[in-house]
């Protein structure tokens, strides 16, 4: 639509840029907020300091929350990736009706509002006295991460030509060898993508964890959630920067993986 009058074109561009700024800028506010020297958050800070980073690092509670988050996200990823990869392989070879039923089941935790999922899992965890345990947390985080792995591996499976497996079988390769030499290398990018999504899903998860975690298994988001309602010190902004820093690092990692697989194709 090149014939849009100049005035309209300028208006659209300005509006689009404003919306883009609205998407990004507010998130960046946590960075200056974390460098406040005062014991309350002022934007922009009256005096700059890394004081609250020191407080964060020297506070055993924040550190344990960070450690719990990393541990939980790793465990959830270690469960979700193999289970989800097998499921994607199974879906690819099952018949239409079964495929529809199973994929609906795998996607369901994504569709049901997270608050309902959380409360339901919390209730069952209470019933079997497993609330607050790392096992309950990692299994339920794995359920939330599972759809991402199934979808991500499923997409990369589309690239595998079934004729290759047939050719390999015709040349005398066994099923394990076919899997190792043909299927696995092709689903690898999907598995890596699924792993990153799983890790992020678990690391950022707040709602389910608010209910399920107890004092000893509190994660970084839960600690942030609990503290923000008690006090409003710059240490909160430091925690937010730590969480965001990890997200950004993984975002960059994904871009690199995508670029590399793009080169191979």
């Amino acid at each position: 639509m090149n014939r849009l009058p100049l005035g309209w074109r300028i208006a659209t561009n300005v509006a689009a840029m404003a919306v883009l700024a609205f998407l990004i800028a507010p998130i960046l506010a946590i960075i200056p907020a974390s460098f406040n020297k005062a014991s309350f958050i002022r934007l922009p800070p009256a005096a700059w300091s890394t004081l609250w980073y020191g407080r964060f690092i020297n506070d055993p509670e924040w550190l344990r929350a960070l450690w719990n988050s990393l541990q939980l996200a790793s465990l959830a990823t270690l469960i979700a990736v193999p289970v989800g990869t097998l499921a994607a392989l199974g879906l690819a070879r099952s018949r239409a009706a079964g495929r529809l039923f199973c994929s609906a089941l795998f996607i369901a935790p994504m569709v049901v509002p997270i608050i309902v999922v959380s409360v339901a899992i919390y209730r069952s965890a209470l019933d079997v006295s497993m609330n607050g345990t790392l096992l309950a947390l990692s299994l339920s985080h794995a359920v939330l991460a599972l759809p991402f792995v199934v979808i991500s591996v499923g997409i990369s499976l589309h690239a595998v030509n079934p004729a290759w497996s047939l050719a390999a079988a015709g040349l005398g390769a066994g099923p394990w060898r076919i899997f190792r030499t043909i299927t696995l290398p092709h689903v690898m990018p999907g598995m890596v993508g699924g792993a990153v999504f799983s890790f992020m899903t678990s690391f950022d998860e707040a709602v389910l964890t608010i209910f399920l975690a107890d004092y000893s298994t509190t994660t970084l988001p839960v600690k942030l959630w609990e503290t923000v309602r008690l006090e409003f010190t710059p240490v909160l902004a430091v925690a937010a920067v730590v969480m965001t820093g990890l997200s950004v690092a993984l975002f960059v990692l994904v871009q690199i993986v995508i670029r590399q697989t793009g080169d191979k194709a």
Partner: protein
Amino acid sequence: MTDSAAPGRWHRLETGALLAPALLLVILIFMLPLGRFLSLAFTAPGGTFATFQVLSESTVYRRILLNSFVIALVVTLITAALAWPLAYLMARTRGAWFTLMMYGVMFPLWISILVRTFSWMLLLERQGPVNRLIQALGVSQTPLPLLFNNTGVLIGMVHVLLPYMVIPLYGSMSRIDPRLMQASDGLGAGLWQSFRRIWLPLTMPGLAGGATFVFLLSLGFYITPTLLGGRSSTMVATLIVSFITEQFNWPMAAAASIVLLAAVAVLMLVAARFLRVDKGMFAR
């Protein structure tokens, strides 16, 4: 090839074995707890459907349910209005600018919702930057109450959910054949007429898809309304939690969850219908 040549039992057994761990995980950790929890709605001492009766008769609960719908609707309308120019520009841009905009839209999705909500708490405070800007511009002499009410909830939710509207809208806009506009131009259609008869109908599927996403996600939102809202702006998720943590009333929590799930299910059915109708329009 021996495996697939004898398809029958062996092949099915293998497929089952591949699916089994995931099915077990989802059924044990998700379906079973969900079923058990929702069934609590029918176990109230007052009778099988007593919980639903309380929900529908109490003015407080009715107002909260209504408030959730109104907020979800307003969030959907605002995101649609904001997403429109951005999606339009993305569909008409190539190269580095496009990449930059795409990253700009996708990036917030990578940041924790809690962090995104927290940053709005910093910005919308009484003495925060937004209020100081408002006073500096002379819009208002005193700081405006932007936090702990529906204003805060709306701003935060629009910010969190905007990417879910931009992406489908961009998807349908980028598929519009530019020759259609040239043709309508050549046939003498005005700007408004071309927009109304070509651009708008062709972007409807994206708009409907985005609106469904945003509306459904809004309905069940917990973190953002709880942190940015006040007592008067309670939404249904907060109600479910308060039934459990404040009243220890699991049947009521389950009943409110069923109402929320039913709304989600109905909306998804409507959306599926609507989107299919739109595909039919495409074919014509």
